[in-house]
């Protein structure tokens, strides 16, 4: 019977096999969990750091985190699905975030969105099959002075046109 694992099973939960998680990542994941073991309310932190390691949060990983932190899997799943920061689907190596807030919208954000979608055959929130890019529209990034703005990974780019956007992206693999 699987259900009493949360409460009675002290042994290390068996690491589930997952093709997107390498042994190195597992070590990192265990380190994160170890650091947060007795920290109350650490789920969000653990999820964020694990997502940084793996790129996204596969269901098997959520399960593993729940068992290791001894919190209900439903709760971990609830937190992961609540924040848009977390993704349970594979994400690209590079995350493109196009601002569609009011200022950017007025200055042509959807032209950029449309061009990116066409060029890379993407939908809002989807990832290219080779996992090169994930495209996301976001609300205001607080950079209205740079409208229309776009974020690639951690770098912000402002006053961009669709052509410029494509050119910028060529440098990311």
């Amino acid at each position, binding site marked *: *019977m*699987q*259900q*009493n*694992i*949360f*409460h*009675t099973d*002290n042994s290390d939960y068996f690491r589930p096999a997952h093709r997107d998680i390498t042994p190195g990542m597992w070590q990192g994941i265990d380190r994160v969990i170890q650091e947060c073991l007795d920290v109350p309310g650490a789920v969000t932190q653990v999820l964020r750091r694990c997502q940084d390691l793996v790129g996204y949060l596969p*269901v098997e990983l*959520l*399960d593993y985190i*729940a068992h290791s932190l*001894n919190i*209900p*899997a*439903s*709760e*971990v*799943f*609830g937190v992961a*699905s*609540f924040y848009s920061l977390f993704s349970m689907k594979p994400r690209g190596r590079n995350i493109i975030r196009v601002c569609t807030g009011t200022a950017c919208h007025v200055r042509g954000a959807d032209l950029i969105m449309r061009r990116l979608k066409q060029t890379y055959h993407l939908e809002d929130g989807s990832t290219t099959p080779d996992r090169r890019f994930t495209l996301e529209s976001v609300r205001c990034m607080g950079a209205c002075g740079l409208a229309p703005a776009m974020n690639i990974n951690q770098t912000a780019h402002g006053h961009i046109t669709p052509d410029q956007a494509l050119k910028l992206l060529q440098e990311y693999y």
Partner: protein
Amino acid sequence: MGKQVKLRIDGQEVQAPAGMNLIDAAELAGIHIPNLCYLRGMKGIGACRMCLVEVEGLKAPIIACNTKVKQDMAVHTRTERVQEIRRFVVDLILSMHPLDCVTCTKSGVCNLQEYAYEFGLKESSFSRKKFTYPVDEGNPFVKRDPAYCILCGRCVRVCKEQGTNVLDFMGRGIESKVITANDMPLHESGCTFCGSCIDVCPVSALREADREKKGREWEFSRHESVCMLCGCGCDITVSTKGDLIQKINAGSRSPSTEQHFICTYGRFGYEHVDGGKRILSPMVRKGGQLQEVSMKDALEDLAGRLKKAGKNTGFISTASILNEDAMTLQRFSGEVVKTSNIDSTASLYARPEQLEKSQKAKLDKADLIILVGVNPSQWTRVLPALDVAVRRRLSRKGRLITINSQETALDKLAEINLNGDEIQAVQGMIKSVPDHGIKVDQKLLKHVQEASTDKNMQQAAEMFAGSSNPLIISDPAFFDVASNLAWIKGQAMAMPLESNARGVVLMGVKSKDNTFQDMAAVEHGLVQRGRSTVKLLYAVGDVPLSKKPDGVDFLVVQSSSFTGLAREADMVLPAATYLESSGSMVDYLGQLKTVEQAIEPRGESKTHRDIFVQLAKNMGATLKKPTFSEVKKAAGTEVILSVADMSRKEAFQETPESYLQALNAPVLETSRLLWLKESGMT
């Protein structure tokens, strides 16, 4: 009683204990503050915004569920402003809720329907939003239909508080949904199918899987009763229609709407009353075969045999019969049959003195719970309601120490686990208590002089010394030692495995000569202690034996299910189940509870006491059924704890798990609970 606070609610003066929230305070004055997410006893979360009230001196309305009463507060619960807000909330919810009250099973008791009616809302003024979530009907117990869900979060909260932790919210905003981990169906989520979520759902999103077409809520008659299937003895409300049980819910209607718990057995096991193994008429063995006979013939025949057997008759009973049955049995055996061979299954795991000495206690008042050798678990289905009660207490400021030689399900929630020998641990604790400023009688200390203590025991002793109302719940095997703690402070009780073990013993069904083990000396983990002189053995209730004991010439089984022992019997008498009789029982906390008859006894079955009275008549004696006051008097017997008994008692040979399964085998096998067994979830 704590400090009282005076306030005015809708102009009415109300006196409420300090710290109470406004919804409960208003309820004291008979004023209902509308709400969809509030659960008495749990912290208000203010999710539904229906309980907004206006308080004089405050600009904006505030939520009543999470606001505590204050001296001289003036609250208005029905102002135009808050009514408008409530109407808006209901309007919004209705835009996402199917308006099919005409067929909805919740109709009549649905909170949303009630408020929509109050505000005259036929239809939402917003455009209709519909999600097409699949209905979860992969199990025969709980049906989850997210289309009806209003996201109040009650189910999520009860599930969390009782430690099952299956449900939670997924996503946010309008797209939130109550899910299990990874949105799996319930039967793949670790759910135990207790159905607590059904009881709290204000709408029809969670309901009994077979609830449809069983009748409208207002057609049901409700009977407040007690589940007799295990030592927890939980309050239940049985809904019947046309002499059939339609559903069972947790808790009794009165006095409060506080959340209760019953397990899968208690809620869904009732089908065994009409199950395939039910004994409907008396049977007598003729030529090796059991053949149906009339009740009259059977009882006349039996009366003659009992008269002849006299003191060679033995009575063995389960400890889940009602007080009235037990007392009649005791009188019948002693006064009519004149035998001293009488005992109940309770003697298998507890000695009568332990159950008598077990104190009366209130679990929800205890600030420290000490579990000695008891391992209640919802997952192994051993005393599940105790598991829940402890978890619930812990989420409301209780603390826990577990003392057990094995790992227990509650260990992780306990502040201190004393693993290792239970008796040594308790002795070590007692020895350390005086170090923490509590005086302990020398008489008691003398007995623990030799005990060794360690850091854990010291800490446990410190916690015990610092608590104001500790409750010690012990396995009967360790009760004598553990109850010494209660002699210092608090209450101690021996936790029985069967519902009315305390009652049966208090009513006098306890060994005077041969014990249960002597009379039943057969397999089942029992130690054979030499053979008894019993020639006629009379088994009352579903005694969990499967072989006719050696040396017994005539075996009578008076039971409701044709299982185990009944197959070997020379005479079978049909007995009513607890759902078919009325009377009383004493639960593990020592509370006398009344059991209300919900349905008529099936076939020719009769209550145990009616059968004994008839037998007595046939034997030319008069036997009086006990009155309630006699039962009450017997149940109220209090025995003072004896001090400094440190002896180790023989532990029960069987695991509680297998014993309870044997005891409830008929229920498990002839109801939808069989599904649990077949899918390996028992």
